[in-house]
């Protein structure tokens, strides 16, 4: 794609001959996926940045119009390859709102634990790679080891480490056992020590602070005006958290704080993420001790739920219901309505706009991706910074290319 003259319209320099253009990415190691940034440089100062996206555009929303509500789970978890399970929870949250399904208490708690584990997992990788890009390899290794433990927990629950496809309309694929509960307990117990270690490695580290403090400043007004959500917005002083503002799952029962800062720079975002991990640990602790007994799926009589495998193999009712849900021309009835529902994903507000047309497929399945909105702020916050700051700002924005492009 040629560099366009219109991109330079904002520059007021009389003679632009001395400015030069640098392609940052798609293969730069700090652009962890395929991102391309066209930077206009004055010496080492970034005068303008034009992000070019679309490398991973795979038509996920179009696919959503051709797969039913249970099948589309396999696609949504590929949108965010850092915390895939959260996307599934988010998608089915929206679908259940459309269908008017109220989950069982056990399922609510189970999903809350998994959502918070995903939040920790996302923040672990983000802070880890941010440190890695700025020269701190040890923190990355320590945190990646913790991610491995979360993979293990997720594998025990769902049988998959990564693209789990664990949630279903009205519940989850199968219940968890006591071994899983023990694994979560031991993870929660051991996490604080590692967190503290990384805290000591980075938070007061001269080199790290010099690279991130005062870099990539985003004011409160700009954050609101640009639609920024999640840890980024909270680091800029926007006190908005969907877990508190629009409570869903088990969050109304739980006691936790919303972490925010006023500074609005990369350092504040790092601190907000670090602190949020500890809050998530607090939430998981509360959930795992109070997880209610009972079924994980809503009543099978509601016709929306895939029955458990033993019921399919051994009873005619189960077999019929399985057939009804699975066959392409059958499925459960849906209202001819439209709904927008969002959850607080690790990155921010992850919303789905679903249009139902009476069939078991969504007529339109739109994702509101937080990364997409956040990356649009990049040209604004990188201006007048050094070239090396691009890496720090990219790391603090936590750009997920698959979510960006869908």
């Amino acid at each position, binding site marked *: *794609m040629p560099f366009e003259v*219109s991109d330079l319209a904002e520059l007021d320099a009389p003679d632009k001959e001395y400015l030069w253009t640098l392609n940052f990415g798609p293969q730069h190691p700090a652009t962890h996926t395929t991102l391309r940034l066209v930077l206009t440089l004055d010496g080492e100062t970034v005068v303008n940045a034009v992000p070019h*996206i*679309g490398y991973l*555009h795979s*038509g996920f*929303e*179009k696919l959503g119009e*051709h797969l039913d509500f249970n099948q589309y789970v396999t696609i949504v978890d590929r949108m965010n390859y850092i915390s895939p399970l959260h996307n599934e929870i988010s998608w089915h949250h929206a679908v259940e*709102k*459309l269908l*008017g399904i109220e989950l069982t208490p056990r399922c609510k708690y189970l999903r809350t634990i998994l959502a918070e584990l995903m939040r920790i997992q996302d923040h672990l990788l983000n802070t880890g790679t941010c440190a890695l890009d700025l020269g701190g390899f040890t923190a990355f290794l320590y945190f990646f080891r913790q991610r491995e433990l979360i993979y293990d927990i997720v594998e025990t629950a769902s049988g998959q480490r990564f693209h789990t496809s664990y949630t279903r309309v009205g519940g989850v694929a199968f219940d968890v056992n006591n071994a899983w509960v023990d694994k979560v307990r031991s993870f929660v117990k051991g996490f604080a020590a590692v967190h503290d270690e990384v805290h000591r490695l980075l938070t007061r580290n001269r080199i790290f602070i010099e690279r991130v403090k005062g870099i990539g400043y985003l004011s409160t007004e*700009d954050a*609101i*005006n*640009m*639609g920024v*959500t999640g840890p980024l917005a909270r680091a800029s002083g*926007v006190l*908005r958290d969907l877990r508190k*503002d*629009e409570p869903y799952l088990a969050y109304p029962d739980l006691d936790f704080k919303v972490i925010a800062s006023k500074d609005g720079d990369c350092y504040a975002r790092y601190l907000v993420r670090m602190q949020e991990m500890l809050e998530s640990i607090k939430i998981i602790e509360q959930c795992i001790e109070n997880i209610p007994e009972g079924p994980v799926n809503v009543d099978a009589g509601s016709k929306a739920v895939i029955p458990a495998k033993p019921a399919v193999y051994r009873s005619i009712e189960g077999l019929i219901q399985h057939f009804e849900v699975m066959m392409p021309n059958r499925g459960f009835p849906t209202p*001819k*309505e*439209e*709904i*927008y529902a*969002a959850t607080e994903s690790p990155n921010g*507000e992850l*919303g789905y*706009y679903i*249009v139902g*047309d*009476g069939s078991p497929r969504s*007529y*339109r399945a*739109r994702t*509101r991706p937080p990364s*997409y*909105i956040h*990356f*649009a702020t990049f040209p*604004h916050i990188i201006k007048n910074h050094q070239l090396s700051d691009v890496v720090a700002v990219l790391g603090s924005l936590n750009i997920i290319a698959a979510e960006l*492009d*869908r």
Partner: protein
Amino acid sequence: MSAEEALKATYPGDELTFSQFRDNRRVVVPAGKLFEILAFLKNEQHFDMLSEITAVDYLEYEGAKDRFGVVYVLVNTKTGERLILKTHVNDPEPLLPSVYSLWKSADWLEREVYDMFGIRFSGHPDLRRILTPDEFTAYPLRKDYPLKGRGERHNFPVITRAES
């Protein structure tokens, strides 16, 4: 006074349709009044965040009168309430006013709607394709777009080694 009541009081003669489904509060407005109403909601009702713009192609939807619906999700960051605003546009030249001057988040969101549905936004500073290549001519999320992209990929220009 809620946002709906304020809208009713300010625009009494216009055809605003209010509805609610689950916790979604929705209002359908005519396309001609869209910018005015959005500006009113932002400036007078404190809906300071535009969280989402998306579109729906109602081509095959049962009982639909208009081709496209464009949806705006507004958030009031003080109270945390949401309002979903919808308007309809039609072929052959679907055009809406850009709200970039009100919310900067409209920049990429409007570009995506343009890229995927071909709905233009007048007054947008830089309305280019964002997810698909520049030489792409179709609008993939329209309902009449073939699922396998037949007839599209064949039209891509061939770049020879000498030209590249």
